[in-house]
């Protein structure tokens, strides 16, 4: 069990940088795996969507800066979706509660931790913009606030089932980090149920690899 946990955390630790905001609520009855990584932490969320306005699932987050892991359950609520013939906009609220546990030699006791935040996005088939903010309180493991904004465009419009390619730029702000503002250009590849992102954080010199799979 300890070996499996270590392997899982090591895998998470290999994933670096950025915040993925890719449809945190699916279709009714759908399952989604979302791996999110940023320069502070990496996480995996597996969520189920019981109704089209909300999803819930277990989430594991490895906080590399402060050496703790957070095991939580995260509900996400689609508060509003704006529809148009050529665009879609979304406003989500999310939260989570669970146990924070020391990693990488951090011997502090396990403690209750909770977080909450907001996500918003707007996209057409060739333009994209998003914003995300989160506050995390993890007792003696610390408190964190982050916010990130992203813009992107698709150099071509792929049809159903084609490979969709996006060029994006994300700026994130973490007041507690020595490099409080960081920039990450990235490419998003999207095909069928799979979304993959690859990029490089120019401020802290870290590669990124993110993915979302919907089934």
């Amino acid at each position, binding site marked *: 069990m300890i070996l499996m946990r270590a392997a899982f955390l090591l895998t998470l630790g290999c994933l670096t940088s950025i915040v993925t905001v890719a449809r945190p609520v699916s279709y009714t009855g759908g399952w989604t795996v979302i791996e999110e990584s940023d320069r502070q932490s990496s996480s995996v969320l597996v969520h189920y969507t019981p109704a089209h306005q909300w999803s819930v699932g277990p989430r594991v987050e490895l906080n590399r800066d402060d050496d703790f892991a957070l095991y939580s359950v995260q509900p996400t609520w689609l508060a509003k979706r704006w529809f148009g013939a050529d665009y879609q906009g979304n406003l989500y609220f999310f939260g989570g509660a669970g146990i924070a546990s020391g990693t990488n030699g951090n011997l502090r006791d396990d403690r209750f931790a909770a977080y909450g935040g907001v996500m918003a996005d707007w996209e057409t088939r060739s333009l994209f913009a998003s914003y995300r903010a989160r506050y995390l309180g993890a007792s003696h493991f610390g408190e964190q606030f982050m916010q990130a904004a992203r813009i992107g465009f698709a150099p071509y*419009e792929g049809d159903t089932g084609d490979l969709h390619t996006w060029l994006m730029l994300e700026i994130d702000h973490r007041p507690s980090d020595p490099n409080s503002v960081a920039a990450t250009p990235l490419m998003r590849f999207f095909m069928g149920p799979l979304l993959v992102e690859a990029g490089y954080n120019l401020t802290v010199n870290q590669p990124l690899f993110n993915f979302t799979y919907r089934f």
Partner: protein
Amino acid sequence: MNLLIKNIAMITAVCFCLPATAQEHHAHDDHATHDMHDQHDHEEANSSHASHSGHTASDGPILTRTKDIESALADGGEPIVADVLGVVCDFCALAMNKIFSKREEVAAIFVDLDTKALSLVLAPGASMSDQTIADLAVQAGYRIAEVRRGDAALGNAS
């Protein structure tokens, strides 16, 4: 701070260079869109090929003709085209496919991102109301703007 300014300058330069390439691509697409849809095959979720016929009629998009849809039409199923709001990516198309494919009334389905239209052919003898189609779209997370059936869906309406 200098590093940040340097980074932002680099990114800005990249972002200003790339749209020119994108614009060229779009110009090409605009010119060739209809021919492409006549000739170009698109791969469906089930790996069969979807050959597009003409995409739009005066009243809106018409049925997208995939192999499955042609087969279902040949079996005598009713063709339906629904304009869908908010369909901008493959996740949207996947959601619509998953929800509608579960219904026994549906013999074939294709969500076309180019026309933002849901093409359905019902099983022979089956029926599906506009309200049911709208409700299923909501379950997928989207909204139906208009539904066309029969000749109107096929583009044969006068």
